[in-house]
């Protein structure tokens, strides 16, 4: 059964479908049985030869069908070092590691053995691909080191390990990981049969102070004193200065001293310092405590300066609390014109608002939560970083904040919001409707190399950003120099549609070297010239060193196509100028990028650039009054018609739960609203200025209209009195809510909808259950450092006749600093566990005995190479020999004689003598064979002749002149033995006779007809 199901290994050959090998015995037996009759005319030796050759043919052909592959067992060992470079491990260790590896290599490594290096920080990076050439350990870009992702590094090392060698990983670490699970990665390694040896970095800090956390109540009533508790731990008695900031501003803890903060002496172990802070403004209050060590304190109370602390990174911690909320709105606008009429509405409606441009908008979600609603007025997407856009989305979805987006020429699709994280939060789709006929934009990206760490990653990010900012109707193409195909479209200039194809093309970009800008630019221009689009634009990303001719730029000018150039680390002023000229001559923009940090802004640049062709999404035309969609909606109460507008940004209905309240040309949505997660969103694609809505500013219901919209989106206040407390429980935080109504009675049976906004930008639902009278509890996974904001919307049944009690409440939790700096000891048990799990060992830092490249415990990989074609070809070759063996008899003696005589050729004068002797030898051999064959010859004919064919008891045909010799004549031939020519004649004559007979019959038939 095994032969049927699995592969079969025979020496150096492996058969993947060995079932076909059954053909060999089956057909072998059949061949033997059939051959007994059909080969009866041959002598025994020839018959056996024929049989053996036939069996070989069968074996080869069956072998070919069994899918044979040659096996090669590897002999090399590849060792990939996974080195923990996180900041918890002192960098001085690198030298020890280098010398250890160097000595190990000399001791145990064979010349063809491989060495590789992967480093682990927050991210994992391959420093050296496993190679026989690798000597020392070279470390280049290692990324952020304030975290340890050992699991990622082990997985990366498994991903890059060579397939033609047995692999071993050597993990150099203290075992303290902050991201991922090393154990699960070790399981992965075990499944792949790769042992992980451990080279432990044993750490223990003699004297260390950690600011564990800043403990604050989750919420505080307005006017209440905030009691900030700072939890510190110290290994030894240490003196130092405690400093505190509130929202970034220092808090004077000791008014009697000129210095900020005050001096404290910490006892060994946990210390809790309590600092009362006076009541402050409403909203989230973020406190940061910092401990500045002065030195160890001895028994006599003397301070030894400069001692007491090893790591400074763990000397600060943050905490957040919410001080009683009041209704504030944040209005984001770039110009006074955009906001002047809205300002009037806010003032008249007594809605307290802060108005600021986008660059002053808070960057953290915690700070955003100070506001009940955020209003974006004619704001383009590129004014907000990707992270800010994520925060805005979370602010609505997870924190229950309100968002109103008001239009203008730089808003919605025309402002590059298509594809942004916020797009999903809006009640309209920013891509125009598919059926809508409107001018399109065309964009070509010309991509050159991006030479820097993670260059390819950022190159792809920016391309994606640009493509995402376009609408589905726009055309986009990418030109690149590919080493194999040359200058070509990676993605032809086509409408984007669902963007799947272009995303694939971006993923396959190679960022190839470019000698000359001209062919790429010409290709881009030709594409744009033929494109059916209103706005045409080209973006080039390059270091600027390819050759550039000005004539090609003039062609761009002539065609009205602009080029924006992104100069990534230009080599020289000349390259810088080359790209700058390219942009200036064609009317585009030049963006120099000279730092890694600037590189991360590239996606925003590209979104902004993509906006160049997005003006086509703006509708401007004769004034008309948007149609009010008749529906009983709170925000449109009392408004039955609205004044005329002259422009708006085209968008499409989202459908589902979104509600369109005003419609424009071709039923385009002008105003729409919906509930998104815990928050509400309102969009108005026209504007609130005289640009597009001149008639509105003097409209009697202008204030009522906008006040209703804004109040609708604002986060609702609460009817109840809720107190939230949080407590840490391992990797989780327990949120406890005590709910009292306005009369102090406990609220039972409240339904909570809660979301937590996590530091990684993703949110998560939180299950909150009642655990006692008026007491509710939920658990949140808080395993990453950073701020977590929990927003809860509650609804509880009211009194018998009264309305239900509902509202929202928020709380913040802060994991103070990266766990990287929390551990004061190594985590050797985990490392030992990993070694035991994978079959590795814990090394002793002794290069002479550790023997990194040892063979034991490793399974050598086997590589296979298909050889069925060769086996089949050999089978065909053998088949021809098979035919030959049955049809042609080779006389080795004659051949041998010939060679003997050939060697004596120079001695022999007459060629006739040679031939004569050869003939004589052949005759002799024939006589011998005839004698041996005896009576069996009677059956030696291969083919059964017809009855009228003359029978022969010898070879039917014999070639060569020796036929004339009398010695070859059969002694008992019943008839004269026909010669070869006679036989041929006989055959021919029979054929002729048959032909004549057929002709006669045919003739008769013809005559009959």
């Amino acid at each position: 059964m095994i032969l049927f199901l699995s592969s079969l290994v025979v020496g150096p050959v492996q058969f993947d479908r060995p079932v076909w090998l059954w053909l060999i015995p089956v057909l072998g037996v059949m061949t033997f049985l059939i051959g007994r009759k059909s080969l009866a005319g041959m002598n025994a030796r020839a018959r056996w030869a024929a049989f053996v050759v036939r069996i070989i043919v069968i074996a080869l052909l069956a072998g070919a069908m069994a899918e044979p592959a040659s096996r090669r067992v590897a002999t090399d060992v590849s060792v990939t070092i996974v080195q923990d470079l996180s900041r918890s491990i002192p960098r001085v260790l690198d030298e020890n590691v280098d010398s250890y590896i160097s000595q190990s290599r000399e001791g145990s490594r064979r010349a063809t053995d491989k060495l590789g290096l992967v480093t682990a920080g927050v991210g994992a990076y391959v420093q050296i691909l496993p190679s026989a050439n690798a000597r020392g350990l070279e470390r280049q870009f290692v990324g952020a080191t304030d975290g340890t992702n050992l699991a990622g590094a082990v997985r990366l090392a498994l991903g890059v390990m060579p397939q033609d060698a047995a692999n071993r990983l050597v993990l150099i670490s203290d075992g303290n990981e902050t991201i991922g699970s090393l154990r699960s990665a070790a399981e992965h390694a075990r499944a792949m049969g790769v042992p992980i040896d451990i080279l432990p970095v044993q750490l223990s800090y003699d004297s260390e102070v950690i600011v564990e956390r800043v403990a604050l109540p989750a919420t505080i009533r307005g006017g209440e004193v905030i009691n900030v508790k700072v939890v510190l731990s110290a290994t030894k008695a240490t003196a130092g200065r405690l400093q505190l900031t509130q929202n970034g501003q220092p808090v004077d803890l000791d008014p009697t001293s000129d210095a900020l903060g005050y001096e404290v002496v910490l006892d060994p172990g946990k210390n809790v310092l309590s600092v009362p802070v006076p009541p402050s403004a409403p909203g989230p209050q973020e406190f940061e405590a910092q401990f500045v060590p002065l030195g160890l304190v001895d028994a006599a109370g003397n301070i030894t300066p400069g001692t007491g602390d090893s790591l400074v990174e763990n000397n600060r911690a943050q905490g957040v609390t919410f001080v009683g909320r009041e209704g504030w709105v944040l209005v984001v606008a770039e110009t006074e014109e955009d906001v002047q009429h809205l300002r009037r509405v806010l003032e008249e409606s007594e809605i307290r608002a802060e108005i600021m441009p986008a660059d002053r908008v808070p960057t953290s979600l915690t700070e955003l939560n100070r506001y009940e609603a955020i209003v974006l007025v004619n704001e383009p997407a590129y004014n907000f970083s990707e992270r800010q856009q994520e925060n805005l989305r979370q602010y609505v979805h997870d924190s229950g904040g309100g968002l109103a987006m008001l239009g203008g020429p730089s808003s919605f699709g025309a402002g590059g919001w298509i594809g942004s994280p916020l797009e999903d939060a809006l009640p309209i789709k920013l891509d125009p409707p598919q059926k809508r006929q409107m001018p399109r934009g065309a964009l070509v990206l010309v991509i050159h190399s991006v030479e820097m760490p993670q260059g390819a990653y950022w190159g792809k990010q920016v391309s994606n950003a640009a493509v995402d900012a376009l609408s589905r109707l726009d055309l986009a193409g990418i030109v690149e120099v590919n080493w194999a195909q040359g200058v070509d479209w990676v993605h032809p200039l086509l409408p984007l549609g669902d963007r799947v194809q272009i995303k694939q093309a971006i993923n396959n970009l190679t960022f190839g070297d470019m000698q000359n800008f001209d062919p790429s630019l010409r290709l881009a221009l030709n594409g744009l010239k033929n494109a059916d689009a209103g706005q045409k634009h080209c973006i080039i990303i390059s270091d600027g060193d390819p050759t550039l001719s000005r004539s090609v730029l003039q062609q761009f000018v002539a065609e009205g196509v602009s080029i924006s150039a992104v100069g990534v680390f230009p080599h020289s002023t000349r390259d810088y100028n080359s790209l700058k000229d390219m942009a200036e001559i064609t009317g585009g923009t030049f963006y120099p990028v000279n730092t890694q940090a600037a590189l991360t802004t590239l996606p925003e640049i590209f979104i902004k650039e993509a906006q160049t062709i997005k003006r086509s999404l703006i509708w401007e035309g004769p004034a008309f009054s948007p149609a009010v969609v008749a529906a009983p909606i709170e925000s449109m109460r009392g408004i039955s018609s609205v004044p005329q507008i002259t422009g708006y940004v085209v968008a499409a209905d989202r459908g589902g739960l979104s509600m369109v309240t005003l419609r424009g040309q071709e039923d385009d949505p002008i105003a729409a609203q919906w509930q998104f997660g815990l928050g509400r969103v309102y969009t108005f694609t026209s504007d609130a200025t005289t640009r597009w809505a001149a008639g509105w500013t003097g409209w009697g219901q202008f204030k009522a209209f906008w006040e209703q919209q804004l109040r609708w989106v604002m986060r609702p206040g609460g009817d109840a009195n809720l107190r939230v407390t949080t407590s840490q429980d391992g990797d989780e935080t327990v949120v406890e809510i005590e709910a009292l109504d306005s009369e102090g009675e406990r609220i039972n049976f409240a339904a909570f909808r809660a979301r937590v906004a996590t530091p990684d930008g993703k949110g998560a639902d939180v299950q909150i259950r009642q655990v006692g009278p008026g007491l509710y509890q939920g658990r949140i996974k808080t395993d990453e450092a950073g701020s977590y904001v929990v927003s809860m919307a509650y609804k509880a049944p009211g009194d018998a006749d009264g309305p239900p009690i509902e509202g929202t409440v928020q709380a913040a939790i802060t994991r103070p600093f990266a766990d990287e700096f929390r551990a004061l000891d190594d985590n050797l048990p985990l490392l030992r566990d990993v070694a035991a799990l994978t079959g590795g060992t814990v090394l002793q830092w002794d290069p002479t005995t550790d023997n990194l490249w040892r063979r034991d415990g490793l399974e050598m990989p086997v590589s296979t190479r298909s050889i069925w074609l060769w086996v089949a070809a050999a089978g065909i070759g053998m088949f021809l020999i098979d035919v030959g063996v049955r049809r042609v008899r080779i006389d080795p003696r004659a051949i041998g004689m010939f060679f003997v005589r050939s060697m004596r050729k120079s001695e022999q004068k007459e060629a006739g003598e040679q031939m004569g002797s050869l003939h004589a030898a052949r005759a002799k051999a024939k006589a011998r064979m005839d004698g041996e064959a005896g009576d069996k010859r009677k059956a030696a004919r291969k083919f059964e002749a017809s009855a009228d064919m003359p029978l022969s008891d010898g070879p039917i045909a014999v070639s060569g002149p020796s036929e004339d010799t009398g010695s070859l004549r059969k002694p008992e031939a019943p008839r004269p033995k026909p010669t070869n020519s006679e036989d041929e004649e006989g055959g021919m004559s029979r054929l002729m006779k048959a032909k004549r007979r057929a002709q006669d019959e045919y003739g008769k038939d013809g005559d009959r007809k």
Partner: protein
Amino acid sequence: MYAVSKGIHIRQQSSISAIAWIGGVFVTAMLIGGAGCNEIPDGAAIEADLVFGDVGLSYGQFSYPRGIDANERGVVVVDKSARVQRFDVETGAYLGGFRMPAWDLGKPTGLTLGPSLHDASTEMLYVADTHYHRIAVFPVPEDATADAKQTTEPELSFGVYGEGPGEFVYVTDVALLLDESGAVERVYVSEYGGNDRISVFEPTADGVSFLYSFGIFGDGPGTVGTRDVQFERPQAMAIDYTTRELIVLDNCNHRVGRFTLEGELITWIGDDTDEAQFLHPQGLVLLEGQRAMIAEFLGNRVQVIDLATGASLGSYGYAGRGEGELASPWGVALAGRDAFVLDSGNNRVQRFRAPGRSAPTPEKVMADSGGTP
């Protein structure tokens, strides 16, 4: 064949079987043995007898190598980590190396082995330090224990940024004109970046002095017999002592120029369709018999051409990552009959049997011509 047929007894009147049998054996032999060989293949994979290098920063590894030269004493390669490494011609073993003194602005793209400007008996390495706008001359690295990441200052360098006479923008290659005693008579430097031209220098006691330059940026045909020529990125040069010509690869115009040693245009190869065609000719080495091997950056092959007629004589390799395939080859060099192609995109050097020896040296030309150049 005759001998064998003499030993064959055709048992039946099946001469057809015999022919089929012999033919079959022949076909099988062809299948197994492969097709017959031609000295210069036409686009077949390179039959490399030595491959060395892989990606990385250790000894014998490359990070996108972009310059190569070779002679019987070694193969020298410079890569994008600004490391110059020398390898054994026979084994590919690392023989020594160093790092360029500066590389932040960019890395070199051209290498030439040749005698010192002032001492014909000392071999030096001329590096076209492209982004530092100069030619830097280093001792040939000889110490196999030397750390190739250790920077080394050049013994001599010349060139400053500029567009004036003797100034450079982006230098790409150096060609040395030697006299019959092997001493440097002239130095030819090619460059691009607006200054797409070739500048000619002669050695002086303390360096070089500028003689003249020829070529401007453009793709025009120029005027035969004059220095009125246009280049778009002249990438590599070589001197043919037999014909006393300077051969130049005009990379972005996809052509090869033949010039007198005074810079006068003789002809272009590659601008007529009946001649050899190129796709970014990048690396050049001359063969005996007025032939040249040219590595094509985007053609992904090494083409052999007849310089006299402009005809293509065949080519080695095609685009790919596998054995005998090429990815963006930046250069080709010769040591005796061994050709070394710099397979940049694959971070390796492939050695194969060249279809002839390298073009004769001036001494050899002198000897062959009886002393008259």
